[in-house]
Protein backbone atom coordinates (compact mmCIF):
# COMPACT_ATOMS: atom_id res chain seq x y z
CA UNK A 1 0.00 0.00 0.00
CA UNK A 2 2.84 2.32 0.89
CA UNK A 3 4.42 1.60 -2.50
CA UNK A 4 1.21 2.50 -4.35
CA UNK A 5 0.95 5.77 -2.40
CA UNK A 6 4.55 6.57 -3.29
CA UNK A 7 3.93 5.92 -7.00
CA UNK A 8 0.79 8.11 -6.94
CA UNK A 9 2.70 10.88 -5.18
CA UNK A 10 5.50 10.68 -7.72
CA UNK A 11 3.06 10.74 -10.64
CA UNK A 12 1.27 13.74 -9.13
CA UNK A 13 4.50 15.69 -8.63
CA UNK A 14 5.54 14.75 -12.18
CA UNK A 15 2.30 16.08 -13.64
CA UNK A 16 2.52 19.29 -11.55
CA UNK A 17 6.06 19.97 -12.68
CA UNK A 18 4.88 19.97 -16.32
CA UNK A 19 1.75 22.07 -15.74
CA UNK A 20 3.57 25.38 -16.01
CA UNK A 21 3.54 26.59 -19.58
CA UNK A 22 4.22 29.60 -21.79
CA UNK A 23 2.89 30.82 -25.12
CA UNK A 24 3.55 33.76 -27.41
CA UNK A 25 1.24 35.73 -29.66
CA UNK A 26 1.64 35.74 -32.59
CA UNK A 27 3.13 32.27 -32.52
CA UNK A 28 5.43 33.12 -35.44
CA UNK A 29 7.16 36.48 -35.14
CA UNK A 30 10.18 38.56 -36.09
CA UNK A 31 12.40 40.66 -33.87
CA UNK A 32 10.72 43.91 -34.91
CA UNK A 33 7.15 42.79 -34.17
CA UNK A 34 5.12 43.31 -31.01
CA UNK A 35 4.62 40.05 -29.13
CA UNK A 36 2.70 39.07 -26.01
CA UNK A 37 4.25 36.36 -23.85
CA UNK A 38 1.87 34.59 -21.49
CA UNK A 39 3.16 32.35 -18.70
CA UNK A 40 0.91 30.03 -16.70
CA UNK A 41 2.71 29.43 -13.41
CA UNK A 42 0.40 26.62 -12.33
CA UNK A 43 2.52 23.79 -11.04
CA UNK A 44 5.47 26.00 -10.22
CA UNK A 45 6.23 27.19 -6.73
CA UNK A 46 4.92 30.60 -7.80
CA UNK A 47 1.35 29.30 -8.13
CA UNK A 48 -1.30 30.89 -5.96
CA UNK A 49 0.99 33.48 -4.42
CA UNK A 50 -0.40 36.66 -2.94
CA UNK A 51 -1.73 39.06 -5.57
CA UNK A 52 0.18 41.88 -3.96
CA UNK A 53 3.44 40.35 -5.10
CA UNK A 54 3.66 40.77 -8.91
CA UNK A 55 5.84 38.49 -10.97
CA UNK A 56 8.72 39.66 -13.09
CA UNK A 57 9.98 38.33 -16.38
CA UNK A 58 13.63 37.36 -16.80
CA UNK A 59 14.71 37.25 -20.43
CA UNK A 60 17.65 36.28 -22.58
CA UNK A 61 18.35 35.52 -26.22
CA UNK A 62 21.01 34.06 -28.48
CA UNK A 63 22.76 37.47 -28.33
CA UNK A 64 22.45 38.26 -24.62
CA UNK A 65 19.76 39.73 -22.44
CA UNK A 66 17.86 42.98 -21.91
CA UNK A 67 18.04 44.97 -18.68
CA UNK A 68 16.49 42.38 -16.35
CA UNK A 69 17.82 44.04 -13.20
CA UNK A 70 19.56 41.68 -10.81
CA UNK A 71 18.39 38.20 -9.84
CA UNK A 72 17.47 39.29 -6.33
CA UNK A 73 15.99 42.62 -7.45
CA UNK A 74 14.30 42.55 -10.87
CA UNK A 75 14.04 45.80 -12.83
CA UNK A 76 10.71 47.62 -12.60
CA UNK A 77 10.51 47.48 -16.41
CA UNK A 78 10.31 43.68 -16.19
CA UNK A 79 7.09 43.65 -14.13
CA UNK A 80 4.47 41.34 -15.63
CA UNK A 81 0.72 41.90 -15.95
CA UNK A 82 -1.68 39.58 -14.15
CA UNK A 83 -4.20 38.18 -16.62
CA UNK A 84 -5.97 35.75 -14.25
CA UNK A 85 -5.09 33.46 -11.37
CA UNK A 86 -1.60 32.08 -12.06
CA UNK A 87 -1.52 33.56 -15.56
CA UNK A 88 0.84 36.48 -16.23
CA UNK A 89 1.74 38.27 -19.44
CA UNK A 90 4.41 40.57 -20.81
CA UNK A 91 4.24 42.54 -24.08
CA UNK A 92 7.35 43.72 -25.91
CA UNK A 93 8.88 44.47 -29.26
CA UNK A 94 12.07 42.39 -28.94
CA UNK A 95 14.39 44.83 -30.78
CA UNK A 96 13.26 47.68 -28.51
CA UNK A 97 13.20 45.77 -25.23
CA UNK A 98 16.56 44.10 -25.80
CA UNK A 99 18.05 47.15 -27.58
CA UNK A 100 19.31 44.74 -30.19
CA UNK A 101 18.95 44.71 -33.99
CA UNK A 102 15.92 42.70 -35.11
CA UNK A 103 18.05 40.69 -37.52
CA UNK A 104 20.27 39.42 -34.71
CA UNK A 105 17.57 37.38 -32.98
CA UNK A 106 17.47 33.64 -33.40
CA UNK A 107 15.50 32.91 -30.24
CA UNK A 108 14.37 34.57 -27.06
CA UNK A 109 14.17 32.85 -23.70
CA UNK A 110 12.26 33.75 -20.57
CA UNK A 111 11.01 32.69 -17.18
CA UNK A 112 8.75 34.25 -14.58
CA UNK A 113 10.12 34.94 -11.12
CA UNK A 114 9.49 36.79 -7.89
CA UNK A 115 11.17 40.17 -7.64
CA UNK A 116 13.76 38.54 -5.39
CA UNK A 117 14.74 35.32 -7.11
CA UNK A 118 17.01 34.06 -4.36
CA UNK A 119 16.18 31.18 -2.04
CA UNK A 120 14.29 32.54 0.95
CA UNK A 121 12.84 30.53 3.87
CA UNK A 122 9.89 32.90 4.07
CA UNK A 123 9.41 33.20 0.30
CA UNK A 124 6.78 31.38 -1.76
CA UNK A 125 9.09 28.49 -2.55
CA UNK A 126 10.75 28.11 0.82
CA UNK A 127 14.44 27.80 1.44
CA UNK A 128 15.10 24.94 -0.96
CA UNK A 129 13.98 26.36 -4.31
CA UNK A 130 14.29 29.61 -6.20
CA UNK A 131 10.91 31.34 -6.73
CA UNK A 132 10.77 30.95 -10.50
CA UNK A 133 9.25 28.93 -13.30
CA UNK A 134 11.04 26.66 -15.72
CA UNK A 135 12.88 28.18 -18.72
CA UNK A 136 10.87 28.81 -21.89
CA UNK A 137 12.20 29.43 -25.38
CA UNK A 138 10.63 30.88 -28.53
CA UNK A 139 12.26 30.87 -31.96
CA UNK A 140 12.40 34.21 -33.80
CA UNK A 141 11.91 34.28 -37.57
CA UNK A 142 14.79 35.67 -39.59
CA UNK A 143 14.24 39.01 -41.31
CA UNK A 144 14.12 38.57 -45.05
CA UNK A 145 16.15 40.96 -47.15
CA UNK A 146 14.05 42.55 -49.88
CA UNK A 147 16.08 44.31 -52.58
CA UNK A 148 14.91 47.86 -53.33
CA UNK A 149 14.88 49.74 -56.63
CA UNK A 150 15.29 53.11 -54.91
CA UNK A 151 17.26 53.49 -51.70
CA UNK A 152 19.81 55.60 -49.84
CA UNK A 153 23.23 54.42 -48.74
CA UNK A 154 23.80 54.26 -45.84
CA UNK A 155 20.20 53.51 -44.85
CA UNK A 156 20.56 55.67 -41.71
CA UNK A 157 22.45 58.90 -42.23
CA UNK A 158 23.16 62.29 -40.68
CA UNK A 159 22.93 65.68 -42.36
CA UNK A 160 26.72 65.94 -42.67
CA UNK A 161 27.30 62.40 -43.98
CA UNK A 162 28.16 61.60 -47.53
CA UNK A 163 25.00 59.91 -48.82
CA UNK A 164 24.25 58.09 -52.05
CA UNK A 165 20.80 58.00 -53.61
CA UNK A 166 20.77 54.69 -55.43
CA UNK A 167 18.79 53.49 -58.44
CA UNK A 168 19.11 49.72 -58.87
CA UNK A 169 18.18 48.64 -62.40
CA UNK A 170 18.79 44.99 -61.48
CA UNK A 171 15.78 45.10 -59.20
CA UNK A 172 13.77 47.35 -61.53
CA UNK A 173 14.17 44.79 -64.31
CA UNK A 174 12.40 42.20 -62.18
CA UNK A 175 9.32 44.37 -61.59
CA UNK A 176 6.24 44.74 -63.71
CA UNK A 177 4.69 48.18 -64.22
CA UNK A 178 7.78 50.04 -63.01
CA UNK A 179 7.88 53.73 -63.98
CA UNK A 180 11.65 54.02 -64.38
CA UNK A 181 11.92 50.88 -66.50
CA UNK A 182 10.42 52.90 -69.37
CA UNK A 183 13.62 55.02 -69.34
CA UNK A 184 16.96 53.83 -70.70
CA UNK A 185 18.89 52.75 -67.61
CA UNK A 186 21.71 55.28 -68.00
CA UNK A 187 19.25 58.13 -68.50
CA UNK A 188 17.38 57.78 -65.22
CA UNK A 189 18.11 60.84 -63.10
CA UNK A 190 16.83 62.91 -60.20
CA UNK A 191 14.18 65.33 -61.46
CA UNK A 192 13.31 67.16 -58.26
CA UNK A 193 14.71 67.36 -54.74
CA UNK A 194 13.32 69.10 -51.65
CA UNK A 195 14.40 69.26 -48.05
CA UNK A 196 12.67 70.02 -44.77
CA UNK A 197 14.26 71.56 -41.69
CA UNK A 198 13.48 70.57 -38.11
CA UNK A 199 10.55 72.57 -36.70
CA UNK A 200 8.99 73.34 -40.07
CA UNK A 201 6.37 71.54 -42.13
CA UNK A 202 7.26 73.26 -45.37
CA UNK A 203 9.54 71.79 -48.00
CA UNK A 204 12.33 73.89 -49.47
CA UNK A 205 13.24 73.20 -53.11
CA UNK A 206 16.85 72.48 -53.91
CA UNK A 207 17.92 73.91 -57.27
CA UNK A 208 21.45 72.83 -58.17
CA UNK A 209 23.68 75.44 -59.76
CA UNK A 210 25.05 72.66 -61.94
CA UNK A 211 22.12 70.76 -63.52
CA UNK A 212 24.45 67.83 -64.14
CA UNK A 213 24.42 67.20 -60.41
CA UNK A 214 21.08 65.41 -60.78
CA UNK A 215 22.50 62.98 -63.32
CA UNK A 216 23.29 59.59 -61.87
CA UNK A 217 26.64 57.91 -62.32
CA UNK A 218 27.33 54.21 -62.57
CA UNK A 219 28.71 52.60 -59.43
CA UNK A 220 32.23 51.37 -60.29
CA UNK A 221 32.62 47.59 -60.35
CA UNK A 222 28.88 47.04 -60.02
CA UNK A 223 26.39 46.27 -62.75
CA UNK A 224 23.26 48.36 -63.38
CA UNK A 225 23.50 50.42 -60.19
CA UNK A 226 23.50 54.20 -60.43
CA UNK A 227 24.00 56.83 -57.75
CA UNK A 228 23.99 60.48 -56.89
CA UNK A 229 26.43 61.20 -54.03
CA UNK A 230 26.28 64.35 -51.93
CA UNK A 231 26.62 65.81 -48.46
CA UNK A 232 23.16 67.24 -47.57
CA UNK A 233 24.47 69.87 -45.16
CA UNK A 234 27.00 71.27 -47.63
CA UNK A 235 24.75 70.87 -50.67
CA UNK A 236 21.62 72.49 -49.26
CA UNK A 237 23.72 75.07 -47.41
CA UNK A 238 21.10 75.87 -44.77
CA UNK A 239 22.03 78.06 -41.75
CA UNK A 240 24.23 76.52 -39.08
CA UNK A 241 21.59 76.99 -36.37
CA UNK A 242 19.11 74.83 -38.34
CA UNK A 243 18.93 71.06 -38.52
CA UNK A 244 17.85 68.93 -41.46
CA UNK A 245 14.75 66.80 -40.86
CA UNK A 246 13.93 65.07 -44.16
CA UNK A 247 14.81 64.97 -47.81
CA UNK A 248 12.65 63.81 -50.71
CA UNK A 249 13.15 63.39 -54.43
CA UNK A 250 11.76 61.88 -57.61
CA UNK A 251 13.51 59.83 -60.27
CA UNK A 252 12.56 60.41 -63.89
CA UNK A 253 13.82 61.21 -67.36
CA UNK A 254 15.55 64.41 -68.44
CA UNK A 255 12.40 66.36 -69.37
CA UNK A 256 10.50 65.00 -66.36
CA UNK A 257 7.74 63.64 -68.59
CA UNK A 258 8.25 60.31 -66.83
CA UNK A 259 8.76 60.51 -63.10
CA UNK A 260 8.28 58.48 -59.94
CA UNK A 261 6.22 59.52 -56.91
CA UNK A 262 8.17 61.39 -54.23
CA UNK A 263 10.53 59.22 -52.25
CA UNK A 264 11.13 60.51 -48.71
CA UNK A 265 13.80 59.74 -46.12
CA UNK A 266 14.26 60.98 -42.56
CA UNK A 267 17.64 62.28 -41.40
CA UNK A 268 19.21 61.00 -38.15
CA UNK A 269 19.79 63.59 -35.45
Amino acid sequence: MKKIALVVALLLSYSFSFAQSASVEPAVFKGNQEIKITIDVTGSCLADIDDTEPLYIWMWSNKGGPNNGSWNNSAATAKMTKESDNVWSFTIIPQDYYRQAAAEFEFIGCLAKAKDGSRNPTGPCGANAEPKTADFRFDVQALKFIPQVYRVFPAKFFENDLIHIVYDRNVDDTLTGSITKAIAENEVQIVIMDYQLVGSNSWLPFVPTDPNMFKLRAVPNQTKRYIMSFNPKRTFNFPNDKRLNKIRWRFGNSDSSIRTPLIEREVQR
Partner: protein
Amino acid sequence: MNFRKLQVLLLAALVVTFTACYPDDSEITNSSGTPKSVDPFLDINAFVGTWKLETVTQVDENAIVQKQPDYMQKMVLSELFNYDVTLNLSRPDSVGKFAPYTVTQNGEAPFYLPGGTGQWRLNLIGTPRINMTNADTALTVYPAPAFRTSDNKLTLKIDRMAGNTKVSSYVYAFTRSN
Protein backbone atom coordinates in the same frame (compact mmCIF):
# COMPACT_ATOMS: atom_id res chain seq x y z
CA MET B 1 62.36 6.29 -31.17
CA ASN B 2 62.05 5.89 -27.43
CA PHE B 3 59.65 7.89 -25.26
CA ARG B 4 62.35 10.20 -23.83
CA LYS B 5 63.51 11.25 -27.30
CA LEU B 6 59.94 11.94 -28.33
CA GLN B 7 59.48 14.15 -25.25
CA VAL B 8 62.60 16.20 -26.05
CA LEU B 9 61.52 16.56 -29.69
CA LEU B 10 58.05 17.77 -28.73
CA LEU B 11 59.48 20.28 -26.24
CA ALA B 12 61.86 21.65 -28.86
CA ALA B 13 59.00 22.01 -31.36
CA LEU B 14 56.97 23.88 -28.74
CA VAL B 15 59.80 26.34 -28.04
CA VAL B 16 60.32 27.00 -31.75
CA THR B 17 56.59 27.61 -32.25
CA PHE B 18 56.37 30.11 -29.40
CA THR B 19 59.49 31.98 -30.52
CA ALA B 20 58.19 32.25 -34.08
CA CYS B 21 54.80 33.60 -32.98
CA TYR B 22 56.02 36.29 -30.61
CA PRO B 23 56.35 39.78 -32.13
CA ASP B 24 59.87 41.07 -32.58
CA ASP B 25 61.22 43.55 -30.06
CA SER B 26 60.76 46.64 -32.24
CA GLU B 27 57.02 46.09 -32.18
CA ILE B 28 56.64 46.08 -28.43
CA THR B 29 59.21 48.64 -27.33
CA ASN B 30 58.87 52.36 -27.79
CA SER B 31 61.95 54.39 -28.57
CA SER B 32 63.54 56.83 -26.15
CA GLY B 33 62.29 55.00 -23.09
CA THR B 34 58.62 55.93 -23.45
CA PRO B 35 56.08 53.60 -21.86
CA LYS B 36 55.14 50.45 -23.72
CA SER B 37 51.63 50.33 -25.08
CA VAL B 38 49.20 47.99 -23.33
CA ASP B 39 48.62 45.95 -26.47
CA PRO B 40 51.96 44.82 -27.93
CA PHE B 41 50.55 45.38 -31.42
CA LEU B 42 49.65 48.99 -30.62
CA ASP B 43 53.10 50.48 -30.53
CA ILE B 44 53.43 54.25 -31.01
CA ASN B 45 56.03 53.57 -33.73
CA ALA B 46 53.29 51.97 -35.76
CA PHE B 47 51.55 55.36 -36.02
CA VAL B 48 54.27 58.00 -36.23
CA GLY B 49 55.30 59.00 -39.73
CA THR B 50 53.90 60.04 -43.10
CA TRP B 51 50.99 58.15 -44.60
CA LYS B 52 49.40 58.14 -48.03
CA LEU B 53 45.66 57.48 -48.25
CA GLU B 54 44.99 54.43 -50.40
CA THR B 55 41.36 53.44 -49.99
CA VAL B 56 38.26 54.94 -48.37
CA THR B 57 35.25 52.80 -47.64
CA GLN B 58 31.89 53.86 -46.23
CA VAL B 59 30.12 51.09 -44.33
CA ASP B 60 26.44 50.64 -43.46
CA GLU B 61 26.84 48.91 -40.09
CA ASN B 62 23.15 48.02 -39.91
CA ALA B 63 23.38 46.19 -43.24
CA ILE B 64 26.25 44.14 -41.81
CA VAL B 65 24.23 43.22 -38.73
CA GLN B 66 21.34 42.23 -40.98
CA LYS B 67 23.66 40.16 -43.16
CA GLN B 68 22.54 41.99 -46.29
CA PRO B 69 24.47 41.50 -49.55
CA ASP B 70 27.92 43.02 -49.85
CA TYR B 71 26.75 45.84 -52.14
CA MET B 72 24.34 46.97 -49.40
CA GLN B 73 27.07 46.89 -46.74
CA LYS B 74 29.73 49.13 -48.22
CA MET B 75 30.52 51.81 -50.78
CA VAL B 76 34.15 52.18 -51.86
CA LEU B 77 34.49 55.97 -51.95
CA SER B 78 37.99 55.83 -53.39
CA GLU B 79 36.45 54.28 -56.53
CA LEU B 80 34.03 57.21 -56.78
CA PHE B 81 36.41 60.06 -55.95
CA ASN B 82 40.07 60.78 -56.55
CA TYR B 83 41.76 60.96 -53.16
CA ASP B 84 45.09 62.69 -52.84
CA VAL B 85 45.60 62.85 -49.09
CA THR B 86 48.74 62.65 -46.97
CA LEU B 87 48.70 62.39 -43.19
CA ASN B 88 51.75 63.16 -41.10
CA LEU B 89 51.73 62.12 -37.45
CA SER B 90 54.55 63.57 -35.34
CA ARG B 91 56.03 61.62 -32.47
CA PRO B 92 54.51 62.40 -29.07
CA ASP B 93 56.59 62.36 -25.87
CA SER B 94 54.78 59.18 -24.85
CA VAL B 95 51.61 57.16 -25.37
CA GLY B 96 48.66 59.30 -24.25
CA LYS B 97 50.40 62.64 -24.95
CA PHE B 98 49.34 64.92 -27.78
CA ALA B 99 51.62 65.69 -30.73
CA PRO B 100 51.07 67.69 -33.95
CA TYR B 101 49.64 66.20 -37.12
CA THR B 102 49.11 67.57 -40.63
CA VAL B 103 46.63 66.52 -43.28
CA THR B 104 47.41 67.62 -46.82
CA GLN B 105 44.56 67.17 -49.27
CA ASN B 106 44.51 68.01 -52.96
CA GLY B 107 41.11 67.98 -54.63
CA GLU B 108 37.57 67.95 -53.32
CA ALA B 109 37.01 64.30 -52.45
CA PRO B 110 34.85 64.00 -49.33
CA PHE B 111 37.13 63.47 -46.34
CA TYR B 112 35.96 63.41 -42.74
CA LEU B 113 39.16 63.30 -40.68
CA PRO B 114 39.85 66.76 -39.20
CA GLY B 115 41.97 68.40 -41.92
CA GLY B 116 44.80 70.93 -41.90
CA THR B 117 46.92 70.92 -38.78
CA GLY B 118 45.99 69.71 -35.33
CA GLN B 119 47.00 67.52 -32.41
CA TRP B 120 46.73 63.75 -32.11
CA ARG B 121 47.30 61.19 -29.39
CA LEU B 122 47.14 57.43 -28.97
CA ASN B 123 44.74 56.70 -26.14
CA LEU B 124 45.00 53.22 -24.67
CA ILE B 125 42.60 53.66 -21.77
CA GLY B 126 39.71 51.37 -22.60
CA THR B 127 39.30 50.60 -26.29
CA PRO B 128 42.51 51.68 -28.09
CA ARG B 129 41.74 54.82 -30.05
CA ILE B 130 43.23 57.95 -31.53
CA ASN B 131 42.02 61.43 -30.64
CA MET B 132 42.42 64.01 -33.42
CA THR B 133 41.70 67.66 -32.73
CA ASN B 134 41.99 70.71 -34.97
CA ALA B 135 40.53 74.21 -34.66
CA ASP B 136 37.03 73.06 -35.73
CA THR B 137 36.70 69.40 -34.86
CA ALA B 138 37.56 66.88 -32.17
CA LEU B 139 37.23 63.34 -33.40
CA THR B 140 37.92 59.85 -32.10
CA VAL B 141 39.06 57.28 -34.61
CA TYR B 142 39.83 53.62 -34.12
CA PRO B 143 42.89 51.79 -35.45
CA ALA B 144 42.42 48.42 -37.08
CA PRO B 145 42.73 45.45 -34.72
CA ALA B 146 46.07 43.54 -34.57
CA PHE B 147 47.84 46.63 -35.82
CA ARG B 148 51.61 46.17 -36.32
CA THR B 149 54.52 48.41 -37.20
CA SER B 150 55.86 45.87 -39.67
CA ASP B 151 52.70 46.02 -41.78
CA ASN B 152 53.33 49.66 -42.75
CA LYS B 153 49.58 50.12 -42.95
CA LEU B 154 47.44 52.48 -40.92
CA THR B 155 43.68 51.99 -40.92
CA LEU B 156 41.55 54.58 -39.13
CA LYS B 157 37.82 54.19 -38.66
CA ILE B 158 35.25 56.87 -37.83
CA ASP B 159 32.08 55.50 -36.28
CA ARG B 160 28.79 57.33 -36.79
CA MET B 161 26.58 56.74 -33.75
CA ALA B 162 22.82 57.19 -33.27
CA GLY B 163 22.65 57.07 -29.49
CA ASN B 164 24.51 53.92 -28.52
CA THR B 165 24.07 52.28 -31.91
CA LYS B 166 26.71 52.39 -34.61
CA VAL B 167 24.85 53.11 -37.85
CA SER B 168 27.68 53.67 -40.30
CA SER B 169 31.41 54.23 -40.49
CA TYR B 170 34.17 55.58 -42.71
CA VAL B 171 37.31 53.49 -43.02
CA TYR B 172 40.50 55.21 -44.18
CA ALA B 173 43.35 52.88 -45.16
CA PHE B 174 46.79 54.48 -45.42
CA THR B 175 50.15 53.09 -46.51
CA ARG B 176 53.38 54.37 -45.03
CA SER B 177 55.16 56.65 -47.47
CA ASN B 178 58.37 57.10 -45.49
